[in-house]
């Protein structure tokens, strides 16, 4: 455990930082300028990639599971219980339990992150599909649509608000958990946070990396709200 050092002796002056950095002030803009392209920007990029892969794979899996459970009702319980159990495992523990199998790699992180998206996405997609009014489904059949046409042209579009809400929660959750994933795979915005804690609690780096993670989460949330409004114009009046 890193514990509070009795005397703070910074070791990051080698990079040419001024008094601000050697005295570990709250925020040193010079450090940010020098390390933006080398430390912060790559970490931000890795974080975005980690999140996109996890949400992408999670969405495909959850959509398949939800469609299966939509047709075969008995599948809902096992899928629901399985994803809920995955969801309750503390993230740090799940990363460490998977690490022996896949090594300290991005694969380990992605498997755990995908696991956490499943519960949210599965539940939201299935709920969205279930809430399509029976009359609408009957009308689609009455118009001569095949079950497949009805699914893709009527039921899934009507379930879109619930699906987008699930995507929003899942994305924000993954952005949050991906910071913890850096403990295993040293990627993403968690990596500079852990580096800073180990380097005598270097404040500027903590604030930058933490602030970027928070901004990324809020921006992603806003982007998905915007996408939701664009995709479901009929629900806009609410």
């Amino acid at each position: 455990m890193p514990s509070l050092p009795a005397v703070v002796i910074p070791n990051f002056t080698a990079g040419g930082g001024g008094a601000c950095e050697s005295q570990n002030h709250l925020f040193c803009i010079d450090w940010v300028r020098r390390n933006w392209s080398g430390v912060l920007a790559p970490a931000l990029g890795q974080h975005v990639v980690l999140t996109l892969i996890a949400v992408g794979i999670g969405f495909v899996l959850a959509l398949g599971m939800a469609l299966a459970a939509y047709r075969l009702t008995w599948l809902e319980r096992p899928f629901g219980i399985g994803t809920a159990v995955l969801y309750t495992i503390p993230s740090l523990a799940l990363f460490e339990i998977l690490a022996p199998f896949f090594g300290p790699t991005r694969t380990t992180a992605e498997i755990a992150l995908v696991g956490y998206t499943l519960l949210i996405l599965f539940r939201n997609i299935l709920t969205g599909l279930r809430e399509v009014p029976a009359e609408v489904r009957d009308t689609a059949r009455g118009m001569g649509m095949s079950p497949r046409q009805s699914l893709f042209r009527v039921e899934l579009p009507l379930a879109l608000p619930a699906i987008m809400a699930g995507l929003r929660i899942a994305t924000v959750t993954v952005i949050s958990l991906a910071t913890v994933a850096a403990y295993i795979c040293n990627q993403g915005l968690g990596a500079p946070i852990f580096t800073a804690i180990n380097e005598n609690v270097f404040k500027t780096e903590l604030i930058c990396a933490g602030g970027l993670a928070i901004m990324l989460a809020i921006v992603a949330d806003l982007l998905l709200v915007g996408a939701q409004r664009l995709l479901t114009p009929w629900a806009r009046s609410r």
Partner: protein
Amino acid sequence: MNNLIGALHFIGRDGVNQPGEPTLVHLALKHLEIAGAAMLVACLISLPLGVWLGHLRRFSFLAINVANIGRALPELAVIAIGVAVIGLGFWNVLVALVVLAVPPMLTTAYVGVAGVDADVVDAARGMGMRELEILRAVELPLALPIIFAGIRIAAVFVIATATITSLAGYSGTLGDIIANQASYRVSGVLGAAICVAGLALATDGAFALLQRALTPRGLRLDRRRRLPQAGLPVPAPD
């Protein structure tokens, strides 16, 4: 499978591999201590505010959006910024956990009270009840199940999140074992994760009992009454 058996042995040994290590019971109590302190502060902030705003049935924009932004906050990032501003230790962790616990409770308190049937409130006002009486005798009892749903979500969330505080230099929770795979190995990590999950479930159960005890008998008997679930935030894994 071997790891699972190892984990159960680890729990059976009370988490001690070598003499002198802290026991699981000790760590669990410290875990509950920090989580309990954070929940107490968060309740004192969020419940009066949420209930009062709900009673006024105004500022829903504030109450709902605080929760949306709060849900988007990555825990490790909040803790990292807390470490930079406040420093390592109990207070930083407390503040970070409070920041994370307030939004779900604020929203549910608001949604619960604002969602009480307006006709019931009008009837109470027509009977000559004063505003505080309406709040205490009509709105709070009816909103209790939803308010408690928020408290339970926040409590489970805080207990799970307290594990990752070990990564930010606060030692004394069950996260110490989970963050220290090198000496506790996978079986120990898994054992501690099971304990965290057990602690979360037990806390949830304790609040459920408290909720039952506080619910007026007339409402308790009406088992078939379905509670509105809309607007309840989904708990995030830590």
